[in-house]
């Protein structure tokens, strides 16, 4: 399957959608309108929850804010629905920005709980504010009109709704295929991964959150002018769950899944309303929600992936062409060989009463490979985390390329030129090798939101792709750039992480236990790769447990034991040092 096939399929789908009002009865078209309106929210959630990993129960509140805003403007104040659209979008996005600023630093379930909280609070507000019709809602909302042509019937508003849905899908897929989109897709790998690529995780989360709110606002505006009447009901917590359900049923990570999910849930609900009265007379209202929740729970128990990814597995793979040569991305000025690059001065880190790193000092000079070794529990990982900004030292100073990074955020340290790998490999297992490496180029590229959405980023993308391919070739993984990263054996996954780090054009490469879990053959290959990188004048700091691995590879070694620096020197001196043997080999005898 090629890109052309996909475009053809999209075209056919568009034609079918466009023909629908002429072929189908008005009731079906009304139903499809609702599907389209719900789809927008579900697409937003697919981005927020599926791609970004932020589970929001509160999207219905955003829909409500927009719907009430436009209803207030048009029905109560007699303005045009277009003024309503403006207010709906600005108001919703402003509120979302404020809520996002306040809550998006929350972790895991705390964040989701906060969406429950504001979802409920805003939901209660609609029915209780004077001037918004309380529980009776707002009636006689005017239809949307283009000049004097008003979209009154369901067939008329149909084209607007599905036009918007199609545009949103196009923009959404463009966005996901850009540097910002890749950053969003990396969010699920955890903050440490995202920050290590020079990306501010918080800003990406905020962006994705506001985009989802924007889509919910669009939906709310369409809803208000389509149904011409609003009341608090459709924006309460229950509806928030329903939206979540739509995106999960469709396939949480898939934008198209949002549309499919909205369709399935809406149709299912419709048929439940039709058939339940036949099964249980007089109890349909109650059973509807029961049946619905039960189906949702069953779904979550048995098919968490959703429908679109499930179907996608049976479709032929999209064939892609190898990236072509393109202009190089900008490079940073590398320090002169032998220059002092990193200085750790009296670093100390405590956890409660435990001193994990105790007054450790060492230097790294440009162009050398330095290893920090020590037995398990010696404080190596803590030292590493302090260097990369994942932890802060309690005392001491860390200076990189003449600038103190002691208090810098992880992403700023990464941008300054320290690229790292992880002891427990952090790749995006469902992204291709090429895309994983392209993540590394984030800080070297600059296309913004609008250009990404409108696909104006092709030149820079081509450069980033070519750069990523170049780094893959450099580490020896260049032959199958479109394979899925999760399918690589562990050894190659580590090497892929190195390629990703190299794509950031670092001044210092920091490797966290790169040899752990590797087979002998893989270790040899890794050592060879690191040597070739040194020949390219790259500076490397290795934190490692495996003494054999570092002995033949590095220029100098710093040995830690019980949090303190035991000694420092070239491999031969370290090998013969009595204290090192005692510490390392556990001198029980």
């Amino acid at each position, binding site marked *: 399957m090629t890109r052309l096939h996909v475009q053809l399929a999209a075209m056919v789908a568009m034609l079918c959608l466009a023909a629908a009002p002429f072929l189908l009865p008005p009731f079906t078209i009304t139903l499809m309108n609702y599907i389209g309106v719900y789809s927008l929210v579900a697409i937003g959630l697919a981005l927020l929850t599926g791609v970004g990993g932020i589970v929001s129960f509160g999207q219905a509140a955003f829909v409500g804010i927009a719907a009430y805003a436009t209803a207030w403007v048009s029905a109560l104040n007699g303005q045009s629905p277009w003024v309503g659209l403006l207010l709906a979008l600005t108001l919703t996005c402003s509120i979302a920005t404020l809520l996002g600023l306040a*809550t998006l630093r929350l972790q*895991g379930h705390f964040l989701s709980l*906060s969406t429950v*909280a504001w979802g*409920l609070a805003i939901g*209660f507000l609609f029915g209780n504010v004077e001037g918004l019709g309380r529980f009776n809602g707002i009636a006689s909302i005017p239809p949307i009109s283009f000049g004097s042509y008003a979209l009154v019937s369901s067939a008329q508003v149909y084209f607007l709704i599905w036009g918007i849905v199609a545009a949103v899908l196009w923009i959404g897929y463009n966005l996901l295929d850009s540097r910002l989109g890749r950053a969003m897709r990396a969010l699920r790998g955890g903050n440490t991964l995202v920050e290590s690529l020079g990306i501010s995780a918080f800003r990406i989360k905020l962006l994705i959150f506001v985009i989802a709110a924007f889509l919910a606002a669009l939906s709310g505006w369409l809803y208000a002018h389509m149904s011409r009447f609003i009341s608090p009901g459709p924006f309460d917590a229950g509806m928030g769950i329903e939206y979540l359900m739509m995106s999960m049923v469709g396939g949480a990570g898939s934008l198209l899944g949002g549309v499919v999910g909205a369709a399935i849930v809406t149709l299912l609900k419709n048929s439940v309303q039709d058939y339940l009265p036949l099964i249980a007379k007089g109890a349909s209202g*109650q059973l509807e929600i029961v049946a619905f929740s039960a189906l949702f729970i069953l779904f*979550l128990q048995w098919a968490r992936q959703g429908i679109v990814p499930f179907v996608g597995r049976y479709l032929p793979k999209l064939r892609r062409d190898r990236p072509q040569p393109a202009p190089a991305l900008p490079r940073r000025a590398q320090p002169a060989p032998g220059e002092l690059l990193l200085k750790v001065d009296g670093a100390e880190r405590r956890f409660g009463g435990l001193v994990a790193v105790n007054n450790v000092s060492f230097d790294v000079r440009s162009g050398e490979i330095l290893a920090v070794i020590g037995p398990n529990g010696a404080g190596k990982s803590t030292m590493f985390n302090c260097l990369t900004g994942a932890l802060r030292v309690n005392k001491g100073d860390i200076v990189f390329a003449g600038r103190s990074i002691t208090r810098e955020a992880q992403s700023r340290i990464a941008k300054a030129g320290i690229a790292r790998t992880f002891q427990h490999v952090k790749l995006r297992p469902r992204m291709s090798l090429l895309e994983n490496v392209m993540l590394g180029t984030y800080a070297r590229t600059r296309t913004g939101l609008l250009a990404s959405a409108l696909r104006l980023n092709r030149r820079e993308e081509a450069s980033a792709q070519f750069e990523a391919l170049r780094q893959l070739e450099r580490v020896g993984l260049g032959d199958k750039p479109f394979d899925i990263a999760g399918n690589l054996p562990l050894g190659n996954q580590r090497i892929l992480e190195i390629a990703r780090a190299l794509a950031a054009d670092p001044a210092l490469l920091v490797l966290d236990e790169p040899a752990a879990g590797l087979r002998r053959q893989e270790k040899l290959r890794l050592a060879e790769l690191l040597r070739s990188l040194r020949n390219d004048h790259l500076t490397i700091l290795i934190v490692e447990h495996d003494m054999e691995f570092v002995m033949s590879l590095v220029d100098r070694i710093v040995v830690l034991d019980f949090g303190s620096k035991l000694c420092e020197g070239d491999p031969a001196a370290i090998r013969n040092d009595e204290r090192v043997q005692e510490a390392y080999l556990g001198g029980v005898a």
Partner: protein
Amino acid sequence: MTSDIAAILAIDGIATGAVYALVAIGTVLIFTVTRVIFIPFGDIAAFTALTLAALDAKRFPGTGTLVLVLACLATLVEIISLLRTNEPRLVPRALLLYLALPCAIVGAAWIVTRMDPPLAVRLVLALMLITPIAPLLDRIVFRPIADGTVLLLLTVSVALHFALVGLGLLFFGPEGVRTEPLTSLSTEIAGILISGQTMLIVIAALVFSGLLYLFFDFTLVGKSLRATAVNRTGSRLMGIRPARAGTIAYLLGSLMAGVSGILIAPVNTVFYDSGFLIGLKAFVGAIVGGLTSYPGAAIGAVGVGILESFASFESSALKDVIVFSLLIPILIWRSLSSLHSEEEIEE
């Protein structure tokens, strides 16, 4: 606002808060043992009130049917899972635990109801009928995904709440109930009249929290529950079954929620869907304690009660808005003050 009114509001708030506290403690219990944020405890509380009201009216409550339906489902799920793991020898035990036991409880309750029992017996009956619901739901809904993320469990929990609201309407009908007060005594402290019911609520909350404390500190089963909460892997290595610990936690939590339902029924009119707000407010309280501390949860819940009491005096329409808006700063505070390792989100 005069000081008299403030005092009355405060007392009112403490009483409401004590009710929330019982539910909040149950929520913390379940969360620490099973990682499930069990939103439906509020529904359990409301269902208890509705059950008691039905018993008062000499009707057999819908709870009985609900328990029977859930027992059949749970038995089915359990037997299927036993057959899958190739352990058919455990089927009789499953039938006994998941089918015979709940049926026996419902049967006993049905017989006793016929005999026009006194209030004390009706209270026990209501609690007996309500306690199997949460453990059965655990077996049906949560056990198959026990290894899922907190978020998945939360999503399921929220969906489950909606299912229960529907079932509530089906089994109890749309009418609200208000049961007769458990006591008509009242007393005056510092010039302010305090009803016996208020006193009873606070005392009951204290007594049941105290009993729970004793259970945790002085019994091996209680300790095994704490162990599961502190360290799941560690407790499994001791041979403590997380599923069993979960069942006990659900039983205890239901009991606490049931008691709170009984206490609130004479004070507020309870509808089939009243549980949601009770559950959520208890939950706000539980979050004050970071979802892990019992005293923290109790204090938080009482705080919510007092806040609500004052908020409803200022603006009864917006009191819920105020309570839930407050949750956001609390969450931020909790998130900042709790050091937890980053959890990668499930693919």
